[in-house]
């Protein structure tokens, strides 16, 4: 029987339900005076908000997400092998499994070194100006 799995689903449902109930119960008694002037404008330190916030932001977040994706998949893939390593050691084939994991990790570390050398791990990226200073 899937007793544990049902428990997890109950937890998720109860978590969602608790937030919903608290917000719904609060809606019955809390004041609603949204008609007041300037109350429902975007907060920008007392200034009028300039335009939307949905503009292009720095692509380094996107690069970071890509790097994360690679390494997170690596961790997920390693989980089952690492769990089984102890059993294999007891069976006497632990050394082979260890070398296999090591090879996998080395390939990934080469990837990390590649990113490092390429400068993708730097937060501040320096764009080299192609025109020399004298000519400017």
């Amino acid at each position, binding site marked *: 029987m899937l007793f544990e799995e049902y428990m*997890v689903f109950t937890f998720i449902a109860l978590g969602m339900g608790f*937030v919903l109930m608290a*917000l719904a119960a609060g809606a019955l008694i809390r004041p609603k005076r949204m008609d007041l002037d300037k109350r429902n404008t975007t907060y920008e330190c007392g200034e009028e908000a300039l335009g939307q*916030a949905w503009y292009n932001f720095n692509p380094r977040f996107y690069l970071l997400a890509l790097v994360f994706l690679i390494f997170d998949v690596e961790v997920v893939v390693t989980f089952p092998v*690492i769990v089984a390593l102890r059993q294999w050691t007891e069976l006497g084939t*632990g050394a082979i499994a260890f070398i296999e994991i090591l090879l996998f990790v080395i390939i990934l570390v080469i990837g990390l070194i590649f990113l490092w050398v390429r400068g993708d791990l730097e*937060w501040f990226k320096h764009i080299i100006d192609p025109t020399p200073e004298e000519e400017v």
Partner: protein
Amino acid sequence: MKELFFELSQSWQLEPLEMTGAIALWLVVVSAIVLSFVATFAGVTSWVERRVAGRMMSRIGPNRVGPQGFLQWMADGLKCFLKEDVIPNEVDKPLFRFAPYLVFTGTFAAFAALPFGYGIVAADLNIGIFYVTAITALVVIGILMAGWSSNNKWSLLGGVRSAAQIVSYEIPSGLAILSVVVLAGTLNLQAIIAGQGGFPWDWYIFNNPFTLMAFFIFFASILAEGNRTPFDLPEAESELVAGYLTEYSGMRFVFFFFGEWANLWVMSALITTLFLGGWQIPGVADLAGVVAGVQGAAKTLWILLSVVVFFAKTLVLVFVVIWIRWTLPRLRVDQLMVMCWKYFVPFGFLCMMGSALFVLIAQSPLGETVHLVVRLALTGLGGLVLLLFVRRTILNVRELQDPFYFKVLE
């Protein structure tokens, strides 16, 4: 907890249909008990944190509502409950409303697999630790959703920064978890604790040099994942107002903080489980055997003792996390990322492989002796560091010009 239910349900002699109802009732009751524990813990911790902060800053902190201000958290909750729910015109309304659900549920659902004592766990999942790391990732989506949907520059930057930070630190924390999992040979949190012992040299933190390193990597990464200082950049109030929380108010705002304080327990309980021996009582080598051997009140007492041990370790860690928050300054965003990718990730790989190597060494003929020597040496090292810390504290107190003033309660 599952065993308790089946023991009880057998004595009731239920029909199949009644059995289904009983199971449903059991699921709801257990999760409701855990929810009330989480709510109380989050509330009380909010008060404790403010009191501790007050003491560390030589001020008093909240002390008006109830004895020593203990009821402050209830007053705050009630106040926010009655607050107007301001939703600005410019926001993406469905996402803005939905974000708190994800943040709260992501943290609360993790409690399903967390152990509280010997046999005390809501869902004894065989992939426990994997489930916890997976479900807490929901929080990132919630934060990103909150940041983007607010249509506010502070919120957007705070949300994106927070997402980048949390996903980055998930890698080193995953690698640190793996270096413990390789020793335990299982993902079940109860079984990971059962693989350790009551005394410090039986804990996984002192198992080998690599797990000792993994402990610190895990501690720092999980602080970063929980957006705690020194990694609380998303909420860096001097530059981002309140980060992704800027546009939230009232009850929705509360649920973000609810999640944050509940997460304090999740991170402390995880560290206790993985590294600090969990509910193992010092001097009791085989708790499962002891519990199986006794009946009635003695059995309850043993289980209760294991709960006390687990809570004591976890609450000490909760205090340490609060302590760190009011001791260390905030990191810069580029330092944060460099620390993760250039230090923690390579060392995380080293921890994982080193720990795996130790599993191989411990199996060899001489390995057992070598392993014992390493464990004792590392425990001795840990004890030495603790001794130096206590000595330094005593010296500092002595050097004070004014008479030492320390009253916890006032």
